[in-house]
């Protein structure tokens, strides 16, 4: 990408391409969050194709993101998989225990870091 136009001191400037990308994605994301709030979905057939598509999009997206994040970690040597196993086990175990995505996330990250340190 072209060089940055210099902005505030210490901020390092802003490329127009990055700003345009942020504005496009930000506007669309806001639209995804806002407009369905206003929509009247009472007449949407509950077993129709759109309803099924919307119902499946959430779990499909999150599963895709998780797999995409884990795939690079699977390329590590065998010892590198131990922190991954520890992290995943901690997320699952703590989620079952506390039913909190935030606490499970923190526990998984902590377990991964500890296992990494112990193997280091």
């Amino acid at each position, binding site marked *: 990408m072209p060089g940055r136009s210099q902005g505030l001191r210490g901020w390092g400037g802003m490329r127009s391409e990055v700003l345009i990308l*942020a504005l496009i994605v930000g506007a669309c994301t806001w639209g995804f969050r806002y407009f369905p709030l206003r929509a009247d979905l009472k007449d949407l057939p509950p077993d129709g194709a759109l309803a099924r598509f919307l119902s499946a999009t959430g779990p499909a997206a999150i599963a895709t993101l998780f797999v995409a994040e884990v795939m690079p970690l699977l390329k590590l040597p065998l010892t590198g998989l131990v922190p991954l196993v520890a*992290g995943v086990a901690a997320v699952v175990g703590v989620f079952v225990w506390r039913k909190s995505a935030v606490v499970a996330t923190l526990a998984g990250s902590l377990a991964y870091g500890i296992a990494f340190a112990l193997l280091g």
Partner: protein
Amino acid sequence: MREERASFWGGLGTAVPLVLGYLPIAFSFGVAATRSGLSVAEAFALSLIIYAGAAQFLAIALIAAGAPVAVAAFTLVAMNIRHVLYGPALMKRVGADARRQHAWAWSFMLTDEVFGAALGALARGRVFSEPFMFGLGLGAYAAWLAGTLVGAYAGAGALDGWPAVSAGLGFRLPALFLALLLSILQRAQLPVIAVAAVAVVVVTWAWSGTAGLLAGMIAGAVAGVAGLGRHAE
């Protein structure tokens, strides 16, 4: 169950767990952004304007790879389309008569975690109100922006002397997605999840990571249309 007053401050209080979760993830985003060559201003702009963690991490990769704006925008917008589900699900929980006059503002902050926290608070007896949603949303948003700034200013070398901390922070995103997946998991959705997982692996290995993301989401959603996971809510 006793119904608690759903004030702005009540929303801020409900946001405390999100603040604890968001600060380190946003910090790692700021570090990753500057490590990939983005300026502090660019990292902060992504958090300020997009405010969607997974999309922001992918944005770093796309920008660093020199992807055209149109391709990057399409990819990131497709990634965020899942957010269309949250509004109807929330309104279904609070009732069709719920006040939504200022939803144009607080809905900007309706992230995965804010949505989950709002549903959890409602289940614990909170009464839905727009001030509550503003408190909940602004608490999480402020933490995200603050974490991004600190991480971006700390810079790429911030964690060089702390490899275990760096590794742990690097696992925050997979851990978050796994936790979110567990939070919405139902037996009926397993086929959809399996189809998405297989699609992202195959297409990523055969083509590219970006194509794999799109393939996984679309294949999973189409599996839902085809009737797999038909009874999932």
